[in-house]
């Protein structure tokens, strides 16, 4: 990092805050703050829809999976995200946007009842705070690993421990400032800016990497064959690096987990709710799907290149660190072995091989290929992804807190100005709670793993509830509530009785004492946990609904498919029709699957 990198970072932060200031005078009512006044054009909502999800876990994690599992990681996009995004745009958005609900939990109250809303609002609000905390923690660790702040900290002669504190405080302050100023519009506009920065920062990485390796064809020769095919080998868990068979993949990842996330998570749905018309809201996820389907080339390919890079001295080199201890263990390509924090030695698996730190794929690629100057751009691309992820969580949190918890249970019937002030206050304590969560992560790593596990149990059955709520008018509030609870219980039970191979009972599963089934990989176990949760919730909701009194049909107009007028598309140009767009998106995704089969 030299002076030019610092100037680039300064310019970036100036723009992020500047957008907040420009939007400040537009925020007058709570609708402006929480829903951006429902006045954002479709393409902006679309890019924000994509960007809100492009947090730390996404960029770093997808490259890590690319290095670990190869091109099959793109199933998270092509089987997972894309079909779900098309579905939410065409079939579900008419109810979210048309019901004028201000949040996803509020839709649940309109469709079902208060307790279903409460359950969803509270679990969602908790989840967003912890996700943004984890994002913050990951960012601070990354700044430490990349040694970005080492020089200034040395010059000020303060302890290097401060790098972590300063990183947390600084990222929290920036995110806090631009949300406080402009609310959701500010978050959305910054997400669009960040989308372009992420593309601008990572494309040269792919370009230089591929050039270095000798092109795609050469890359396929340098890595095992299974790494450059997404479908060949999916017939059985033994013949692909993910350890999953096609049914678990399509149902678990594709149907349950991805539809559950993209169709019900308020974090992304909020971006579409801010659109300026029903048609724009429906097109939001469809527009987002086009860049989304190409993202594997931007975020997964660098991981694959990282294990194929020709190096003179294969690999223990952590390009980032000059003071790396000579421990004699080699990594793979640019992926170094994972270092145990307490001993400073590499972690070894039971066969004595070093465990690889795949999360360093992207950071090490940046340091390996980017000269000073471009490195500054690469670093702001990474920072942008972290901050857009954090801001997405905070804006979703302040809305759900203010509308679904505070207005519903603590203080109903206050003035709009009161809720606007509460929204600003919620932003401050949302950020404060995230900081607390980030510090909790430094002390109790297992608690974070456990929380994520619990969230997975809570989320897995959600899509069954929404599917029945929107497409079956007979579904009742009692059915939805107890269906959700039994789905979560089924997920916990399944996880507690199964184990991925090679793991010990505990956080990885089998904590109920016995192992009824051994999965070939952790991923297979996750997918099947989700399938169990979904199926249980689906069946229980139907059974309980049939046993309880239905709501009168008159109350369900605009909330259920059979009782809602279809939005007309005839007057629109073909490229503005959601159905035509959706079909085009699916066709393109099929082509990508075929090319990289």
């Amino acid at each position, binding site marked *: 990092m030299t002076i030019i990198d610092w100037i680039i970072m300064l310019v970036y932060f100036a723009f992020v805050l500047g957008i907040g200031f420009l939007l400040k005078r*537009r925020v007058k009512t709570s609708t402006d703050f929480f829903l951006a006044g429902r*006045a954002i*054009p479709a393409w902006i909502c679309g890019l924000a829809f994509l960007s809100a999800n492009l947090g730390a876990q996404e960029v770093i994690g997808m490259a890590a999976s690319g290095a670990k599992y190869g091109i099959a990681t793109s199933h998270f996009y092509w089987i997972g995200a894309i079909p779900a995004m098309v579905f939410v745009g065409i079939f579900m958005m008419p109810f979210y946007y048309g019901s004028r*609900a201000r949040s996803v939990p509020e839709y649940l109250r309109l469709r079902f009842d208060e307790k279903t809303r409460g359950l969803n609002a509270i679990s969602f609000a908790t989840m967003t705070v912890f996700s943004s905390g984890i994002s913050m923690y990951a960012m601070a660790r990354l700044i430490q690993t990349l040694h970005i702040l080492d020089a200034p900290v040395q010059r000020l002669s303060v302890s290097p421990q401060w790098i972590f504190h300063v990183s947390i405080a600084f990222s929290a302050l920036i995110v806090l400032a631009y949300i406080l100023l402009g609310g959701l519009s500010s978050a959305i506009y910054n997400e*669009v800016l960040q989308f372009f920065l992420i593309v*601008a920062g990572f494309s040269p990485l792919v370009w230089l990497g591929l*050039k270095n390796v000798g092109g795609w064809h050469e890359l396929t020769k340098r890595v095992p064959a299974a790494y450059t095919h997404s479908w060949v080998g999916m017939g059985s868990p033994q013949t692909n690096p993910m350890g999953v068979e096609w049914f678990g993949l399509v149902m678990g990842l594709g149907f349950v987990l991805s539809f559950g996330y993209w169709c019900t998570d308020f974090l992304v749905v909020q971006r579409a709710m801010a659109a300026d018309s029903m048609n724009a809201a429906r097109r939001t996820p469809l527009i987002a799907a086009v860049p989304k389907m190409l993202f594997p080339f931007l975020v997964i390919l660098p991981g694959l290149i990282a294990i194929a890079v020709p190096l003179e001295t294969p690999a223990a080199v952590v390009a980032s660190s000059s003071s790396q201890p000579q421990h004699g263990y080699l990594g793979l390509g640019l992926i170094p072995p994972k270092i145990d924090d307490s001993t400073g030695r590499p972690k070894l698996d039971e066969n004595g091989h070093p465990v690889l730190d795949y999360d360093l794929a992207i950071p090490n690629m940046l340091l390996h290929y980017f*000269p000073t100057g471009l490195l500054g751009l690469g670093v702001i691309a990474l920072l942008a992804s972290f901050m857009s992820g954090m801001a997405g969580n905070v804006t979703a949190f302040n809305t759900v807190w203010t509308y679904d918890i505070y207005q519903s249970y603590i203080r109903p019937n206050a003035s709009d100005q009161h809720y606007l002030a509460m929204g600003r206050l919620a932003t401050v304590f949302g950020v404060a709670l995230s900081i607390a969560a980030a510090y909790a992560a430094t002390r109790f790593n297992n608690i974070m793993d456990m929380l994520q596990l619990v969230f997975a149990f809570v989320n897995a059955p959600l899509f069954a509830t929404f599917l029945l709520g929107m497409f079956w008018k007979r579904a009742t509030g009692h059915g939805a509530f107890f269906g959700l609870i039994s789905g979560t219980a089924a997920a916990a039970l399944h996880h507690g009785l199964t184990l991925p191979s090679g793991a010990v009972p505990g956080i990885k599963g089998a904590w109920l004492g016995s192992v009824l089934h051994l999965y070939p990989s952790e991923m297979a176990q996750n997918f099947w946990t989700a399938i169990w949760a979904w199926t249980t919730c689906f069946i229980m909701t139907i059974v309980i609904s049939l046993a309880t009194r239905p709501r009168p049909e008159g109350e369900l107009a605009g909330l259920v498919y059979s009782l809602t007028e279809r939005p007309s598309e005839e007057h629109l140009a073909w490229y503005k029709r959601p159905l035509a767009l959706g079909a085009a998106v699916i066709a393109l995704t099929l082509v990508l699957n075929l090319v990289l089969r």
Partner: protein
Amino acid sequence: MGLDIRLPIGALFTILGVLLAGYGLGSNAAIYQRSMGINVNLIWGMVLLVFGLVMILLGRRGVSHGSKLEDRNPPAKTQPK
């Protein structure tokens, strides 16, 4: 919306492009060893500059067009209580 997001995006990329390309012109060739001898700062700086200028152009054309659109679709402010 009065603020067209393309203008700030265009401005940011124009500034970043000028910074990178300018640095690329003046910098020592030795630092490009890691990028296989390619002066990526200059090349990528130019790419960013062109993208930034195109965004500004689109944004400026969109401002007059966009205000007409806004008249047609007044943002709804009514909320269910």
